């Protein structure tokens, strides 16, 4: 697919928009539909489009496999860590109200943090699965 001009140009136009939309869904999820899970999936869909058109090697040069493993683990850690932070500050596990001065802003901080954790893990795991499958295809080719 690397030689198809139309696909390459379209992908170049679309991929930044899709990834921008993913970040919008991630950080605007409190106000509009969406959240970490949807954002992660949209991000990985955009990047998979890039990998399909420009090749797996180009994609891996941008986001290496090892980095994805780190991001996937850090996402879960960020989520659970937010819960533990609430525990250490005197609340229950995953009670965000104690994270900031007022319960409301604490809730806000907590929700943004855990949603970001979900987004990181989902995006990284989807890309990990795609990389794993696609590299098998490359080996057998």
């Amino acid at each position, binding site marked *: 697919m690397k030689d198809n001009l139309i696909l390459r140009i379209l992908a170049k136009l679309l991929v930044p928009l899709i990834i921008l939309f993913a970040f919008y869904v991630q950080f605007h999820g409190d106000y509009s*539909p969406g959240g970490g899970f*949807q954002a992660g999936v949209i991000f990985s*869909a955009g990047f998979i489009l890039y990998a399909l058109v420009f090749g797996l090697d180009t994609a891996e040069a941008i986001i290496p496999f090892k980095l994805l493993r780190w991001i996937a683990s850090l996402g879960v850690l960020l989520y659970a860590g937010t819960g533990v932070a609430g525990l250490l500050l005197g609340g229950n596990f995953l009670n965000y109200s104690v994270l900031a001065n007022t319960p409301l802003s604490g*809730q806000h901080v907590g929700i943004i943090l855990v949603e970001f954790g979900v987004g990181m893990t989902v995006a990284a795991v989807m890309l990990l699965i795609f990389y794993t499958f696609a590299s098998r295809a490359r080996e057998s080719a």
Partner: protein
Amino acid sequence: MIDQVITLSLLVFLTITAITLVRTEGLLTMVMVFAVYSFLMATLFVVMDAPDVAFTEAAVGSGISTVLMLVTLSLTKTRYEKPVRKLQWRALVMVTAMGCAILYGISDIAAPGDGNAPVNVHVADHYIAHGQNETGVPNLVTAVLASYRGFDTLGETVVIFTAGIGVMLLLGRRRRPVTAEESA
């Protein structure tokens, strides 16, 4: 009225897609029809005022899983499903029984927006009445997912993480032998 027309036409399309799915033999066609099915479902969710679910269905159902199935197809040599010409009695009985069970179950599903349905009288009232005051988040779905039901969402995230680990363990990333061109 317009809602019902849209819903009905989407359901007709869904039925057509499902029948096409059963009748096609090419696996590549099947993957594509699956994507269409998912996309129709996502549209249906939008009509039912559930944009969060529609997002997920469109991105996961017709996006990621289609790509993964395509990559899997490129790994296998099979391109066509062997057609079954003989009537399979056991399968027919099984499918009929399942269909009847599902039709029986449908009668128990609450009507959309029914405030008196058992699922809607437990904690939903509290979320709707106090959700915005307690979390400060206008999107109630996010408030329930991330705050009230934070523990469940943590579990969900861990499940996805585990799925990724499972795929990596099973399919692995064998080190690619360095070819002559690369080392040159």
